[in-house]
C-alpha cells in the first residue's frame, strides 16, 4: 500500500514539476572572456625570459623575447639585417679603434612606464661582454653537484655573468666601461680589436631597474637604475656580484610569475598569461610607440610536441598557425586539410659532407684527387629527389655554397663561380679516372653519421651505393654518439651532419675553415683561405665582405673540402582566416613579421 502512495507522491511531484517546466531557470553571467586570439603551435614550451644565458639559449625563448622586446636591428625574411630606427640608432664612430655609439630614441619606455636608457644598455654590456667578471674564477668549485645551483660558500664578491662571452670575440672585445651620453640615452663602446660583426654583437637588453631592484633590495626605479650604473662604473664587485646572480637566474620561469616586473616589455607585445607546459599568451602592448605596431590584439603560443597532433589541431581550429618538424607524413597530412595555406621552404640548418683531410682513419682523403673523386660520386641530386622532394615538393634545391645562406645577398653569384656545379650530378667515369690517376684502388672510407636519424641512414645508403660504382669501399661508421666523435683524430674519414646558421655574420665561417678553428673538424688548412678569413675579420665594408666571402667559398670548393647538400626542409601552415604569414629562414622563423599578420576579411 505504502509503495503505491509513494508512487503517487512521485507522480504528483513529477506533474507539478512538469507544469513548471515552462519557465527556464535564471542563469548567472557565464563570465566568458570576450577576446579572440591567434593561436600558434610551437613544439617546446617557453622557460626563460633571458635568452642570453646558457640556460635560456633556445628558440622557444627567443621567439617570445623577439615579440616582446624591441631592439636596434632585426633580420627580415630575405634574410637581411634591417635597422629599427623607431627604437634607436647606432653608428660606427670610428674604425680604428672600432668605436660604436648606440642611442635610444627619446620616449621609448618599458611597459611599466620607466624609460629605456643607458642603464639598460650598460648592464647588457656588462652581462654580454663579461668584461667585469672576476678573472680566472671557476664557478665549478662552488656549484652544488646535485642541483647545479651555487652553494652558500659562493664568494659574495665574485662577479659571474652566465652569458658565455669570451674576451677575444664579439662584445667581449669591449673591455672598458662604455661612456654614457645624450642625457643618459646613449652609450659609446670601444672595441679592443676590430670586430666586423659588431652590428650583431649587442643583443636585446633586460630592464636594468628590475635587476637593480631585486638584486640590491631597492624599491625606487630611478634609484635602482642609478645604482646599476654606479656599480658598473665603479666596478663595485659586491653589487655586481648580486646583479650578475639575479641576471643569471631571476628571469627563468615556467608559469606567469607573481611579480609583473619580471616580464616587462618594450616591444609590440607583452606577456599576459602563461600556464606551465600549456600556453603563453601575448597581448598587444598598449603603450607601444615603435615601428611594429601589431594589428592582432592577442597571440597565444600553444605548446604541442607531436607534429601530427599539430596538424590535427590546425584542422580542428584549436590553432591557426603551425610550423611542425617537416617530414613527408606531415606534408601529406597537410595536403588533405581544407582552408589552410601551406608554405614549404627551408630552415636555417644545412646538411653537408666533410672529408677528413688529415688525421683520418684510413688516410684516404689526404690526396686531393681522391677527395675530388669522392665528391663526384656523392649523389646529391638523388638525395634531394628521394629524401627532400617528398617533403617540400618540386621546389627542393641543392645548397651550393659553403658560406652563403640561400637567398642572402651574394649566394647566387658565388654559386655560379665557386665550381660547385661540377658536383651537381654523379660522374662515375670522372671519379674512376681520378682514382686511376691517383693510383689507388678500392679506397676505404669510414663514414660517420648519426645512426639514430633515419634520414641520415638513408643518405648514407645512397652514398654508399653510388660511391661503390667508382670503386670506393664506404664503411658504415654510423654512431649514435657521432657528435662526440666529430673532430677526433683517426676516428673516421668522412662525416655527414648539419650546421645551423643563426645569423649572416661574416665571422662565423672563420672557426669552421681556418687552420685550428674550433669548428674545424676536418683539419682543413689552406694558407690562402686563412689569409682571406683574416682579411674578412677586419673588413667593415659590406660590399668587400661579400667579395671576400665569394673568394673563400671558391677556395674551399677548389680544395675539395667536401660538399653541401641541402637546407633542412621547413613547412608552415596557417588557417586562411589569417593573412601575412611569411616565414624567414633564420630565427625567429615564422614570428619575424608577427606585426604584419592580419585577421583576413571574412569571405
Amino acid at each position, binding site marked *: 500500500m505504502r509503495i503505491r502512495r509513494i508512487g503517487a507522491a512521485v507522480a504528483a511531484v513529477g506533474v507539478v514539476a512538469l507544469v513548471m517546466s515552462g519557465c527556464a531557470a535564471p542563469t548567472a553571467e557565464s563570465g*566568458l572572456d570576450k577576446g579572440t586570439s591567434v593561436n600558434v603551435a610551437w613544439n617546446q614550451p617557453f622557460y626563460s625570459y633571458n635568452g642570453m644565458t*646558457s640556460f635560456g639559449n633556445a628558440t622557444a625563448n627567443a621567439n617570445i623575447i623577439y615579440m616582446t622586446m624591441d631592439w636596434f636591428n632585426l633580420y627580415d625574411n630575405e634574410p637581411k639585417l634591417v635597422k629599427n630606427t623607431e627604437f634607436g640608432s647606432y653608428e660606427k664612430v670610428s674604425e680604428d679603434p672600432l668605436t660604436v655609439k648606440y642611442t635610444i630614441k627619446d620616449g621609448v619606455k618599458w611597459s611599466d612606464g620607466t624609460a629605456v636608457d643607458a642603464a639598460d644598455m650598460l648592464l647588457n654590456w656588462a652581462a654580454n661582454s663579461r668584461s667585469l667578471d672576476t678573472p680566472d674564477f671557476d664557478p665549478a668549485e662552488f*656549484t652544488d653537484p646535485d642541483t*647545479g645551483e651555487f652553494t652558500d660558500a659562493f664568494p659574495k664578491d665574485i662577479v659571474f655573468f652566465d652569458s658565455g662571452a669570451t674576451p677575444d670575440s664579439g662584445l667581449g672585445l669591449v673591455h672598458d666601461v662604455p661612456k654614457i651620453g645624450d642625457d643618459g640615452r646613449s652609450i659609446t663602446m670601444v672595441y679592443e680589436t676590430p670586430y666586423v660583426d659588431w652590428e650583431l654583437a649587442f643583443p636585446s637588453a633586460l630592464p636594468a631597474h628590475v635587476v637593480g631592484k631585486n638584486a640590491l633590495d631597492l624599491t625606487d626605479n630611478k634609484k635602482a637604475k642609478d645604482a646599476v650604473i654606479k656599480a658598473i662604473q665603479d666596478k663595485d664587485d659586491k653589487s655586481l656580484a648580486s646583479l650578475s646572480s639575479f641576471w643569471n637566474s631571476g628571469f627563468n620561469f615556467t608559469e606567469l610569475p607573481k611579480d609583473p616586473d619580471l616580464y616587462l616589455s618594450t616591444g609590440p607585445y607583452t606577456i599576459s598569461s602563461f600556464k606551465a607546459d600549456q600556453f603563453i599568451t601575448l597581448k598587444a602592448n598598449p603603450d607601444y610607440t615603435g615601428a611594429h605596431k601589431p594589428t592582432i590584439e592577442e597571440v597565444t603560443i600553444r605548446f604541442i610536441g607531436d607534429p601530427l597532433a599539430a596538424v590535427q589541431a590546425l584542422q580542428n581550429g584549436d590553432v591557426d598557425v603551425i610550423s611542425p618538424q617537416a617530414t613527408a607524413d606531415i606534408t601529406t597530412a597537410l595536403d588533405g586539410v581544407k582552408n589552410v595555406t601551406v608554405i614549404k621552404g627551408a630552415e636555417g640548418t644545412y646538411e653537408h659532407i666533410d672529408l677528413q683531410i688529415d688525421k683520418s682513419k684510413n688516410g684516404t682523403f689526404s690526396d686531393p684527387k681522391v677527395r675530388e673523386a669522392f665528391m663526384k660520386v656523392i649523389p646529391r641530386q638523388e638525395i634531394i629527389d628521394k629524401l627532400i622532394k617528398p617533403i617540400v615538393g618540386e621546389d627542393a634545391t641543392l645548397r651550393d655554397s659553403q658560406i652563403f645562406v640561400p637567398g642572402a645577398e651574394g649566394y647566387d653569384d658565388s654559386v655560379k663561380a665557386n665550381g660547385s656545379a661540377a658536383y651537381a650530378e654523379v660522374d662515375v667515369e670522372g671519379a674512376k679516372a681520378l682514382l686511376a690517376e691517383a693510383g689507388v684502388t678500392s679506397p676505404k672510407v669510414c663514414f660517420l653519421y648519426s645512426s639514430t636519424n633515419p634520414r641520415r641512414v638513408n643518405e648514407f645508403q645512397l652514398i654508399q651505393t653510388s660511391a661503390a660504382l667508382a670503386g670506393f669501399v664506404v664503411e658504415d661508421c654510423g654512431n649514435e654518439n657521432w657528435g662526440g666523435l666529430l673532430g677526433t683524430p683517426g676516428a673516421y674519414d668522412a662525416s655527414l651532419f648539419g650546421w645551423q646558421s643563426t645569423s649572416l655574420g661574416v665571422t662565423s665561417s672563420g672557426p669552421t675553415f681556418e687552420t685550428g678553428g674550433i669548428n674545424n673538424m676536418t683539419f682543413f688548412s689552406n694558407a690562402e683561405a686563412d689569409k682571406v678569413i683574416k682579411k674578412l675579420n677586419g673588413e667593415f665594408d659590406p660590399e668587400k665582405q661579400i667579395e671576400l666571402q665569394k673568394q673563400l667559398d671558391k677556395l674551399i670548393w677548389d680544395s675539395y673540402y667536401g660538399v653541401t647538400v641541402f637546407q633542412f626542409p621547413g613547412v608552415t601552415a596557417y588557417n586562411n582566416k589569417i593573412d601575412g604569414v611569411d616565414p624567414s629562414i633564420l630565427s625567429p622563423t615564422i614570428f619575424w613579421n608577427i606585426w604584419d599578420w592580419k585577421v583576413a576579411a571574412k569571405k
Partner: protein
Amino acid sequence: MASFVTRRLIAAVFVLLAATFLMYILVSMSGDPLKELRESSAPNKLELMEARTRLLNLDVPPFFRYFIWLGGIAQCFVGQCDFGVNVQGLPVNVLLQQAMGSTLQLVVSAQLIAIVVGLAVGITTALRQYSGYDYSITFASFLFFSLPIFWVAVLLKQYIAIGFNDWLAEPSIGIAVLIGISIVSGLLWMSVLGGTGRKRLTTLAVATVSTGALLAYLNLTGWFSTPSIGIVGVVLTAVAAALGVTAISVGLKNRNALRGSLVTAAVGIALYYPMTWYVFRFMTLPLFLGLAVLSVVVGGAIGYFLGGRDRWQSARTSAIVSVIISAVIALEGHLFYWSDYFNSTRINGRPIATFGSATPNLGGNFWVQGIDTFTHLLLPTIAIILISFAGLTRYTRSSMLEVMNQDYIRTARSKGLTQRTVVVRHALRNALIPIATIIALDIGALIGGAVITEFVFGWSGMGQLFQKGLQNVDPNPVMAFFVVTGLLTVIFNLVADLLYASLDPRIRVS
C-alpha cells in the same frame, strides 16, 4: 602481518636501488647530452658546453654520478627531496609536481570509468556466455587490445573532434543513420537481456522503436544545438535509477529498500527547481563537493530510516540512487551554459579539443570551466578507457565464469535462491578477488602516465617528463619519473597482496 610488511618494504628498497642504478646508467649512456651544442656554430659554444657539463656533472662518470643523484634523493628522508635539475637548468622537483598534477587529472576519471564499464560488461558477457553479445564484446575487446594508441588517438581526433565539430555546425541525424543506430541499439539490448525467442523479439522491437523515437524527437527539437535534460529527463532517470539500482542491489521484493529509493528519487526531483533556480548560480568547487557529499549522506539517511530490518542494505541502495540523481542534475547545470560556451569567441562553435588540458584565456564560471575540462578530457579519456576496458572485461569475464561453475553456486541455485542473489551475492564477490589485484597494479602503472597518450594529446604529465628527458639524454627527469612509478608499483604490489589476503580467507600473509 607486521613482519611481512616490513620484510616486503626492505626488499622493495633494494629492488628500487638496483632498478634506479640500472636505469641511471642506461639513460646516461643512451646518447650525448651535448649533441645540440656540438652542432651549433655559436662562437661561445665551448663555454656553453662547459656550462652544461658543470650543471649536469657530465665530467663525472655515470657510475659515480648516480651516487651524486642518490644523495639528493636521500634528502627525502629529511623532507627535502632533491631531484636535481634538467638539461635546461630547471629544478626537477617543480617539473615533477606539475607533471603529477596533470597526470592525475587525466588518469583518475578514465580509470574509474574503465573499471565500472569493464566490470559491468565483463559480468554480463559471463552471464550470457556464447551469445551474440558475448562474441561481439570478445571481438571488440581483442580489437581494442591490439590497437596502437597513437593510431586510436589520430582516429579519435579525426572523427570525435574534427568530424563531430563539423557536424555540430548543423547538427541533425540523417534518416538512414537514425535507422541504423536504432537497429544496432535494438540488437544490443536483445542480446544483453536474452531470454526465449519471443521475449528477444519483443526486446528488439521495443528497443529499436524507442531509440528511433528518442533520436527523432531530439532531432526535431534541435536538442543537439541546445542540449538540456529538463524536468522530464530528470524524472525519468530518477525513477529508472530507483528501480534499477534496487533491482540489482537488493531485489525489487525488498519493499523497504524500494520505498527508500523511491522517496530518494522524489526528493531529488523536488530539489530540481530549487537547485537550478537558487543554488546553481552561486556554485563554486567547495560548494559543489559539499553538495556531493551531502547527497550521499541524505540518500543514505533516507534509506536507513525507511529500511526496516536490513537498514544498511537499504541505506546503500538509496545512497547510490541519490548520487545518480545528483549527477544528472549537476549535468543539467553544465548544460545551461552549453550554448554560451559553444558560441564563445574562444571556442567558435568547435567545442571538442584535440589537445591540451584547457582553452587558453577562456574565463568563465564554475560550470563553463567544467564544460571546458570535459571537452579537453574527452578524447584522451576515451583512448585510455578503450585500452584498459579490453583487459578488464576479459579478466572479469573469465573470473566470473570460473566462479559460476563452482559447486557452491549450484548449491545456492538448488536452495531456490533467485538469479540476482546467486549472481550478485554469491558469485560476484568471489569473482572480484582476482580483479582487485589487477586493478591495484593497473593504478600503479597508470599514474606513471600514459606516455604516448600524453604526447599525442599534448598533456604534459609524467609520460612527457620521461619522454622528453630520454630525448635530451637528461637523466634527472627520467629518474624522477622512474622513482615515482617504481615506488608506486612496489607499493601497489604490496597493497594487492594485502588486499588479496583480506578478501580471500584461504590466504594468509606471514
